[in-house]
């Protein structure tokens, strides 16, 4: 009994490992790079420009093709450096006078990947001085945590700095903050124009903006609209000072928190799944461009500066599984396992591509197994378990039961 049980466990391990490694080797050998086209919106012709680097073609939505140089001039806000060097930068666009300083200030490019959301974090945070005396942002000598207060720990001696702790805790409590915080979102880097501290969700799911100004605490309550359930926040300091942060909600909506009264500005995108899709948020003097990348599709939403939708563009392509290698893989593997995922930093057993195309191969492998076992003159009935395993798990089970045969 113990022997049988041990063998079944071993077979399960082999199935687990072959389901991880065989598809992995298959994809390493046969997968091809899928390059999604890069789509921009031209303020010159007020039309999408599609840059297909795979075919080295540039065209607009009507199919009209352009040379690379023409594209440069139609997207002056993206290629301003190149155009300025060549002396081709226009003085005005759509009647608005432009200069490099304005272009640069209004330029925003931010990407949110699922892996940016699903990643481990040590719950310790650095609160920068927002008004540094020497103007340059400097690393603070404390990290903070939140428990029943906002505790600052000095990096010098790994001890709690009581003075900072009590000044921040007192202010937060007086503003109605309830400890402990559930999440703290900040942007701990000195490579930014200025510092906006942290957006913190307290124990009552309320949102607070916390900063350190001249060594003193600053705390402001941010009103979350009723229909917004925050999943995650990306706080980013852009020179434009139009918004504090990007907010992704539990129902996969995208918002900005504006400088203007902490207003939540909804971005008109649809059909976004924050666990699988990548979002690219781009801004320039005239437009906001939001691209939602899926495995087999991209959809671009262009809005004016008031976030009113102007136009959309959609392009699809064959996903990995729809291409030849993907189709072949479904006839070989009944399912696939992977330890890592492009959507998460965590190691786990990611199950995917369950399909029934492999049933033909499963039947063939089952027949081979029966023939082999019959040749060895082992009880066919006693091996029923093996047959079921081969039938269900196909090539993985076939390898497992035939390497580690029943010894009875």
């Amino acid at each position: 009994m113990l022997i049988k049980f041990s063998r079944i466990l071993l077979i399960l391990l082999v199935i687990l490992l072959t389901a991880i490694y065989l598809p992995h080797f298959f994809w390493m050998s046969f997968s091809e790079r899928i390059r999604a086209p890069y789509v921009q919106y031209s303020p010159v012709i007020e039309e999408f420009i599609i840059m297909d680097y795979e075919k080295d073609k540039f065209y607009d939505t009507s199919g009209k093709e352009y040379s690379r140089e023409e594209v440069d001039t139609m997207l002056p806000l993206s290629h301003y450096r190149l155009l300025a060097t060549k002396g081709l930068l226009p003085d005005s666009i759509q009647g608005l006078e432009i200069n490099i300083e304005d272009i640069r200030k209004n330029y925003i490019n931010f990407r949110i990947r699922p892996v940016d959301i699903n990643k481990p974090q040590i719950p310790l945070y650095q609160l920068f001085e927002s008004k540094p005396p020497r103007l340059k942002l400097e690393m603070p000598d404390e990290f903070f945590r939140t428990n029943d207060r906002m505790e600052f720990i000095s990096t010098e001696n790994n001890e709690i700095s009581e003075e900072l702790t009590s000044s921040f805790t007192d202010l937060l409590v007086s503003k109605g903050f309830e400890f402990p915080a559930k999440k703290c979102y900040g942007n701990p880097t000195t490579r930014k124009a200025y510092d906006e501290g942290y957006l913190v969700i307290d124990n009552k799911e309320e949102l607070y903006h916390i900063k350190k100004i001249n060594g003193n605490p600053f705390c402001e309550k941010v009103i979350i609209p009723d229909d917004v359930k925050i999943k995650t926040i990306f706080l980013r300091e852009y020179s434009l000072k139009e918004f504090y942060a990007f907010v992704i909600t539990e129902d996969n909506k995208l918002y900005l928190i504006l400088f203007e009264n902490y207003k939540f500005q909804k971005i008109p995108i649809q059909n976004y799944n924050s666990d699988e899709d990548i979002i690219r948020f781009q801004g320039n003097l005239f437009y906001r461009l939001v691209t939602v990348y899926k495995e087999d599709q991209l959809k671009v939403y262009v809005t004016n500066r008031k976030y009113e939708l102007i136009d959309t563009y959609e392009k699809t392509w064959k996903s990995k599984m729809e291409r030849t290698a993907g189709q072949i893989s479904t006839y070989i593997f009944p399912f696939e396992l992977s330890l890592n995922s492009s959507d998460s930093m965590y190691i786990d057993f990611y199950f995917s591509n369950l399909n029934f195309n492999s049933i033909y191969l499963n039947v063939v492998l089952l027949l081979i197994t029966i023939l082999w076992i019959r040749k060895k003159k082992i009880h066919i009935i006693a091996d029923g378990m093996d047959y079921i395993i081969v039938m269900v798990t196909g090539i993985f089970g076939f390898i497992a039961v035939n390497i580690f045969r029943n010894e009875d």
Partner: protein
Amino acid sequence: MFKSLLFKEWLKIKWASAAIFVVFMLMLGYIYINTSYYMRFIEPTGMWYNVVIRGTIFYGGLYIYLPLFAGILIGITQFIPEISASRLKLTLHLPMKENAILLSMLSIGTFTLLSIYLISYIILTLISTYFFPVEVLWSLLITTLPWYLAGLFAYWAVVMISIEIKWSIRIALLMVFLGFLNSLFYLDTYNTYANSIIIFILISLCFVFQTFLSAYRFRKGVL
């Protein structure tokens, strides 16, 4: 009988265990010196930033593979002598149940490894708590767990492969174990196994059973 069996097993692995213990201590000493060096040279704030924000594993480097190395070494020193000249055959003839004999043999190796691992775990805890807040320690405990698990698993794997008599199965087992061990060393940053470590531990525990399967084949083949 049980006691003398344990004593016999301990005699085989005592020098290897002592050597492993010394290497562990030297390595932990190195981690301490290295961390304190960086605390001075990039300043505590810089070091904390690297560890907390950028995900540098300050106890990484060679230490990652040390538990694995220990498991393999203990397995080899304990079971290779049994296999050469089929001494295990004699051992299994002792007036005890065969599986009980095997379990006692495994338990002494497992216990030795666990003791070394536990001591190193505690020292690592002390080093972390000396330099960093407790949050870093929690992440350290989760991050190092797969490495220790790999060590224990490797020990059991070496035992199984040693007492396996069929060469074809030995090679197959080796492939399986390498595949599993590889899955414990995905090291992008800290805490990556937080969601799945329990499953990895359960899978490893299931594999203590495999030794019975190999022992069964050994008895069938040799006795």
